């Protein structure tokens, strides 16, 4: 019995509308399609949800308001005061990651966040933005972030590189965490799905497992969006409230 498993095939990027401009491949791919769908869904949810503006919200308005309040709370408690101007950014980031993750769970859809270049682009945006905010707010004083207080000079030679390193690692941890979680979960689902297709009656076992994993993946999808947004808030707090 030949076991035909292609658990990684689901991550393949395929151009839907080929566009080549001056040697650059700018094709509209399945990945781009699902980003578009995510953005359209978020826009639809928020526009439809807030259109009526009823005092006692209906279902859609409740979802829109709950997500808004959830992120407001998160920004307020984690990024501190003065972070309000950055709320729209964090909200957009959270909703985009959440919707991309959840959309990916629908069979035959494409998980945008399983591509490291997508998560890295998001993380790099956060990282560069936060660094610019830090320098804009504090000037060269921002560099004090890397110098722990009350440490002998000799130790600083060791500690400053460590602090620098742990600062520059941020975009990598931020992006790899999201990407790895998505990739691992979807690969697992595909592998057990492949088993189910090849073992006949025994298929009930891998299918049952897949159902359980799918439930876990829903949790992971929401949680990773939450973690991504909360870390953005924590980084923002660093830049805004220098100690």
């Amino acid at each position, binding site marked *: 019995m030949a076991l035909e498993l292609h658990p990684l095939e689901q991550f393949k990027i395929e151009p839907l509308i080929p566009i080549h401009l001056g040697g650059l491949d700018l094709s509209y791919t399945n990945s781009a399609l699902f980003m578009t769908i995510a953005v359209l869904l978020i826009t639809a949810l928020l526009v439809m949800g807030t259109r009526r503006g009823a005092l006692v919200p209906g279902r859609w308005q409740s979802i829109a308001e709950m997500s808004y309040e959830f992120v407001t709370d998160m920004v307020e*408690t984690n990024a501190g005061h003065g972070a309000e101007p950055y709320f729209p950014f964090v909200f957009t980031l959270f909703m985009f990651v959440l919707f991309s993750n959840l959309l990916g769970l629908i069979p035959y859809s494409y998980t945008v966040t399983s591509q490291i270049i997508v998560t890295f682009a998001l993380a790099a945006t956060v990282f560069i933005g936060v660094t610019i905010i830090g320098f804009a707010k504090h000037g060269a004083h921002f560099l004090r972030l890397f110098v722990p207080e009350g440490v002998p000079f000799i130790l600083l030679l060791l500690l400053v590189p460590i602090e620098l390193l*742990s600062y520059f690692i*941020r975009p990598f941890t931020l992006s790899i965490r999201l990407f790895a979680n998505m990739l691992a979960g979807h690969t697992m689902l595909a592998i057990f799905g492949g088993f189910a297709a090849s073992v006949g009656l025994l298929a009930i076992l891998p299918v049952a497992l897949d159902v359980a994993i799918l439930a876990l993946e829903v949790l992971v999808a929401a949680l990773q969006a939450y973690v991504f947004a909360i870390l953005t808030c924590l980084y923002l707090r660093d830049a805004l409230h220098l100690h």
Partner: protein
Amino acid sequence: MSDERPPDELARLARRLDQAQSSRRREEPGPRQADSGEQQALGLGFRIGIEFVVAILVATGLGWAFDRVLGTRPFATIVLFFLGVAAGMLNVYRAITGQGAAVGFRRPGREAGRKH
């Protein structure tokens, strides 16, 4: 029947909202405890798993790149590997002690005193 709600209903709703909000505020001792504990613990668990590994990998990769450019093989790789281990531990430590992923973050008071 008019479209407007009776004003006393609105007033009652406002009162109930105020009550709910103030009782919620009393339950929250500090700003960092605002999220429900379970949710925060889960988020934290998922966060720190990757933190350590990535720190080492990125640092070692950086060292390897330095070595290639500067021709100092293998010293930068070795040094940066250990720096990466230190940075990874630092990040994990900061994450679990509730200092966020803050670089150089010191909690006012207690933490600052301990560092000296």
